[in-house]
């Protein structure tokens, strides 16, 4: 594996390449997309991107956890967590691309 890390900058660069927007405008649009997805999720909505995957929010109940270092019990409050379920297409492409 090559193990490069892509960032917002690489996404903007791709938009600049594909659509010809300025890098500044492209960066703004990447931000808007992430913002709209985040807002929907914060509202408790599911975000379903066909052939990519589904982001959903799950409610976790309160439980008693343990500090692994001290062994002391600590209460864990109920909270909301985000899960991502990749589409079959993404799973297939990731599996095929990383075959050893």
């Amino acid at each position, binding site marked *: 594996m090559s193990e490069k890390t892509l960032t917002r900058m690489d996404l903007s660069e791709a938009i600049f390449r594909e659509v010809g927007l300025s890098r500044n405008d492209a960066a703004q649009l990447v931000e808007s997309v992430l913002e709209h997805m985040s807002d929907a999720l914060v509202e408790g909505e599911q975000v379903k991107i066909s052939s990519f995957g589904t982001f959903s929010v799950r409610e976790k109940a309160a439980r008693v956890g343990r500090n692994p270092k001290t062994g002391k019990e600590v209460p864990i409050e109920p909270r*909301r*967590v985000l899960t991502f379920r990749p589409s079959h297409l993404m799973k297939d492409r990731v599996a095929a691309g990383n075959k050893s």
Partner: protein
Amino acid sequence: MIRSELIQKIADENPHLYQRDVEKIVNTIFEEITGAMSRGDRVELRGFGAFSVKKRDARLGRNPRTGESVEVEEKCVPFFKTGKLLRDRLNGK
């Protein structure tokens, strides 16, 4: 929210852009992320989350219908970890 609704929201905010360009922009973002992971790369979007690839070891599986053992090859799967900012926002912080 589905892909087309996301595209519509971006289009509404950017009346100077053609609808087909907005579609291309949104599709490019998701395509870049999938493409990166299929090359074994990570995608880190601070505040939102990070996409990475995890290796699953080969294992002996079972056909649930027949109960027969089958060898499952080692494979790589996509993985997403929520960013701190979004995690906090989900919990009203």
